[in-house]
């Protein structure tokens, strides 16, 4: 019978397993996200730095090709683009900055419209829990952001391995782990903060503004605290220092010189920052994630109980 002639009937067919049901939310969200042309253009532009970096890595292994472009130039004695921890740290910083803008464009539209339009009872009256809801929304940001941070950098790592040989791959395997874990930590942190601000601020521009405010306002307070109280712990409020310290610990950049180099890479504006212990940075990241989850737990409910 034609679909438009059918009446009400019960459903006796198969059911999908509940384990991956959160992905339905992500699937539909991707469909909506990529309808915005501006976002698509910006998202594509996010791959430009890694494209340039991968081109540089490729050319550094094909100097003859480079020489043919600049006729008369003398081949360099050293490797053109040394693919080291600092190289990846610098690239990761650029990609992390771009990922903040992607988050600001996508994040506020994930939770706040559901709260504004009272959509949560629709979700939670189905076999779909609050945890699955948060996981579904989180996975949207996680996938989008990982694809512009960790994903392309791991590809550069593989490109370098292909060009330099399997020994380089083995000798520098810690870099791959650092890229993977470092980008997962960053993406998780910023995704949870974005979801929490989207849940608490129902106006999308305000939620986007809050994301930037949370990243940069505490930095000022931290700097002021450092200057007034002559201590270094205020840097814990500096998102760049905190995440930079976490990445340093992953890339094994612990010595003072390494820190200075990394700090220059992470802090091109030249603000005075003081090093903080790696454990405190990890603790800070964990705390921010935990607080974001608590805030989401308070807001993501089928019904708001009016006190």
């Amino acid at each position, binding site marked *: 019978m034609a679909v438009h002639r059918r009446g009400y009937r019960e459903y*006796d067919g198969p059911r999908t397993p509940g384990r991956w049901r959160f992905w339905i939310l992500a699937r539909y969200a991707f469909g909506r996200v990529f309808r915005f042309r501006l976002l698509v253009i910006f998202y594509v532009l996010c791959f430009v730095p890694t494209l340039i970096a991968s081109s540089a890595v490729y050319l550094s292994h094909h100097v003859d090709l480079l020489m043919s472009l600049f006729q008369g130039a003398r081949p360099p004695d050293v490797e053109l683009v040394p693919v080291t921890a600092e190289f990846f740290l610098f690239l990761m910083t650029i990609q992390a900055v771009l990922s903040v803008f992607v988050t600001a464009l996508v994040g506020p539209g994930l939770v706040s419209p559901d709260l504004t*339009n009272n959509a949560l009872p*629709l979700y939670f009256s189905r076999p779909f829990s609050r945890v699955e809801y948060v996981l579904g929304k989180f996975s949207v940001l996680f996938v989008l952001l990982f694809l512009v941070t960790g994903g392309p950098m791991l590809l550069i790592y593989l490109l370098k391995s292909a060009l330099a040989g399997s020994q380089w791959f083995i000798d520098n395997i810690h870099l791959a782990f650092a890229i993977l874990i470092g980008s997962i930590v960053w993406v998780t942190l910023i995704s949870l903060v974005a979801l929490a601000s989207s849940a608490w601020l129902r106006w999308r521009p305000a939620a986007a503004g809050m994301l930037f405010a949370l990243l940069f306002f505490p930095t000022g307070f931290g700097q002021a605290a450092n200057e007034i109280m002559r201590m270094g712990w205020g840097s814990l409020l500096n998102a760049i220092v905190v995440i930079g310290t976490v990445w340093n610990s992953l890339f094994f950049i612990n010595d003072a010189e390494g820190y200075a180099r990394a700090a220059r890479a992470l802090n091109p504006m030249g603000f005075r920052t003081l090093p903080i212990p790696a454990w405190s940075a990890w603790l800070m990241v964990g705390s921010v994630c935990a607080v974001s989850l608590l805030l989401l737990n308070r807001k993501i409910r089928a019904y708001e109980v009016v006190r």
Partner: protein
Amino acid sequence: MIPAIELDHLSVSFNGRPILKDLTGAFSGRAIGLLGPNGAGKSTLIQTLLGFHATRGSARVLGMDVRTQIREIRHAIGYMPENDSFITRMTGIRLVRMMAELAGLPPADALERAHETLFHLGLGEARYRDVGTYSLGMKQMAKLAVAVVHGPRMLILDEPTNGLDAHGRKQMLEIIREIRDSRNTHIILCSHLLRDVEECCDEVVILKDGLIVSQCNLESERRTNRKFIQMETRGETHAFLTNVEQIGCELAVNGNRRLKMILPETVEVRDLYRIASETGVQIRRLDYKRDSLQDIFLKAMEGSNGRP
């Protein structure tokens, strides 16, 4: 038969304020009406059955415990909330399809059922429009579509005719009745409109201040009402009354010509006409003494010693 809903000393409190107080009962009707004044706890009871609130005591839906089997219950339930509930920037078809998928339907089945549900509810032409652009009546139908797309065994409707014009209301009630009469679906209809409940439900639960103040089976009430007769006669009634009493009717004479009587099971109204004809009495008016849902509701409100 497993009752549709069983409550066993069910209590719900918000911030220490009791909303549902020690509710106990079993409701087995095919369509159960939840009635009560504003703030009686109707919506809270519905939300509790959906597992939205922490409870004391227990509640079972279709034999499943709300606390331990909430996922199974949600598979079996379709819920239409009272307020506007939709996902912004989504077409009707995408919204209904997504909700079907979240209820566990595979994507292809979800798409097919979304199309057929929207056609069935009169939104076929508007299914590719953004839900945000729908009129109030269309939004109500879209909410109903979301509630029924996965073919639930129980449909919970919270004020389904809110904001609908006469035509929309009639259409909505027809669909509810159709679903009720389909194979095996229970309906819980929460409304403050007594006529809606009367037209669709066979069992009514009346709540007030978080308590169940009345529970009645409308079908048996209707059957009972058929045996209560009010009558106005003209002519000498002595012989008529004697004969009527002889066939087992209970009588109450109110003035000379007005009679009230309760017919036994074996006596039909046509027997009264026959006796009237034999005894030369004219029956000028005959009416069932109808104890309407409104009477039941008002009695429940008065009986509970509170404000109506």
